[in-house]
Structures are given as C-alpha cells and as structure tokens.
C-alpha cells in the first residue's frame, strides 16, 4: 500500500490484457492440444490470477513485506492439499 498509486492508464491496460487472456483461453479450448488443453487453460488462469494479485491487489510494491509471505503461504498450502490428495487418488491402481 505504498503511496506510489500506479497510473490509471496502467490499470486500464492491465484490465484489457486480462480480457484478451480470457479470449485466448476460450480460443485455446477449441484447439485440440490433446492432454495439454487443461494445462494451457490453467496456465492462462494462473497468469491472470498472478496479474490480479500483484497489481490490482497491490502485493507488488507493498510496504509490508509480510503480506507477500502470507499470500505465498496461502497458495503453498493449497498446493500441498491438492498434491497430497492427488498423490493418494492417482495411485489407487489396486482397487
């Protein structure tokens, strides 16, 4: 929340690029990429989410460095949840 207050032009440009990325996601969904369709979709979603977190939510340039640690730890624990759950369910071949 430092007082650098990025310019409105920057915010509008970021909003437009988020809309463009949405269009790219929809377009990519209709192209047959085999097993990589969900990978591409999630990659684009993650790029969009990262842009929102860093610039719209002002995590980049935040004067309180703890904020970044809290954000990263939040997504890190989500990754642990998903990774360990899938490590279980994907290896139940004996059932």
């Amino acid at each position, binding site marked *: 929340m430092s007082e650098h207050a990025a310019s409105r032009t920057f915010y509008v440009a970021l909003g437009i690029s988020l809309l463009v990325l949405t269009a790219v*996601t929809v377009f990519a969904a209709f*192209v047959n990429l085999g097993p990589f369709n969900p990978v591409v979709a999630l990659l684009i979603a993650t790029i*969009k989410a990262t842009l*929102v977190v860093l610039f719209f939510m002002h995590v980049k340039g935040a004067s309180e460095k703890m904020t970044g640690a809290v954000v990263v730890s939040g997504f890190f624990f989500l990754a642990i949840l998903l990774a360990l759950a899938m490590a279980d369910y994907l290896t139940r071949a004996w059932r």
Partner: protein
Amino acid sequence: MADSHATAVETAAHNPALLHHFADEQQQKDAASLGMWLFLVTEIMFFGGMFCAYLVYRVAHFNAFAAGSQQLSIGLGAFNTAVLLVSSLTVVLAVNAAQRGKRKQLVVYLVLTVVLGLTFLGVKAVEYAEKFEKHHVPGASFAFTESFDDNGKHIPVNPKEAELFFSLYFAMTGMHALHMIIGCGLFAGLAVLAWKGHYTPGYYTPIENAGLYWHLVDIIWIYLFPLLYLISRHS
C-alpha cells in the same frame, strides 16, 4: 510561517482515523491489509477444498465431467468472466480515486462495481434457470441423457457421474455467487458512506479491504471458468 508549520504538524498527528496503538498511518494501513489477507487465505483454503473434490472426481469420471461441461454455455460463461474482470478494474480505480480524494469518482466506480456484480448474478440466474428446465439440478428430478461428444464419437455416460459434476458445479458457482451477493452489499454500503464523505486520502481502509475481497472472488472465478465450462470443447 513557523506558526502555520506547527499547526500542520499538529493536524497530521491528530488524524482522527489513526488509532493510538499504531505508530503512523502507513503502519495502520499495512496492518489492516495484512489482516485482510489472513482472512483471504482462509477463503483460499475454503474454496481449495471444493477445487480438490472437483479434481479428484474429474480424474475419476472424466467422460461424465466433459459431457456435463459441454451442456454449459461458453458464451454466458465468457461474458461473465469479462464482466468480473471489468468490475475488478472499476474496484482498483475506486481505490485510486479514494487515494486521490476524488469523492464523486469514487462513488461512480463503487456504483459501477455493484452494477457489474448484479449483471454477473443476473446472468448466473439465467444459467441456473436453464439447468432447472433441463433437469440438470442434482436431486430427485435429475436426468441426464446426453453423451460425451469426443471428436464426433458419442460416448454414453453414467447419469450418476454427471450428477456429481453438476453437484460440484452448483456447490462451487453457488458459493461463489454467495460471495458476489455479499460483495455487492458491501460495495453498495461503501458507495453510500463514500457519498457522505467518510473516506479521505488519509483513511480509505474499508475501500481497500473490500477491494481485496472482490479481487479474490474474481480470482476464484478466473479458475472456475476454464475448469467448469471448458472441458474437452475441441472437435
């Protein structure tokens, strides 16, 4: 000259919004946004549980999930994604207006955010109504006769597995919509208070924190859209 300088220092030291246990305004703002982020992390884990359930069942019943997803309208989903992204833009512009002390701009952006949020909810209502008509709402009257269209091959799916997809669809979009309803209420309240002049460049923490909440709800939809609407759409 010296006198007016002393008065300025005095005024700065007595910002009525600055609570006595904070050293300065910056520290108070940092503490507020850190606290908001801690709440948002609990929200991430809350939705994370549903994303995890989605992932497990999608892997187990991929054909049924693809068949269910193909029943959703990409047009409406993409439109709603765009509406939410633009609303995030109006929120960040509202925070920017508050920082610059532009009261009217702030009110306009807050009201625009509410309008965009209600637009999203309206489209969602249209989509839900269609689900009721097609008997795609999980429960006693659930029926699913469509097959999974995989490159022109029609693979029949187990309706019970398709019901799982729609259960997750309603749980996730429903919980997201509830967050949107709460967000619209928050922003409507903020718009009224902003109109009355409650917020100044020295104090706009509620705008900032409600904004963080709105952006997180936006991020959840950024993931829900490809996961629910865009499964196996290529031909």
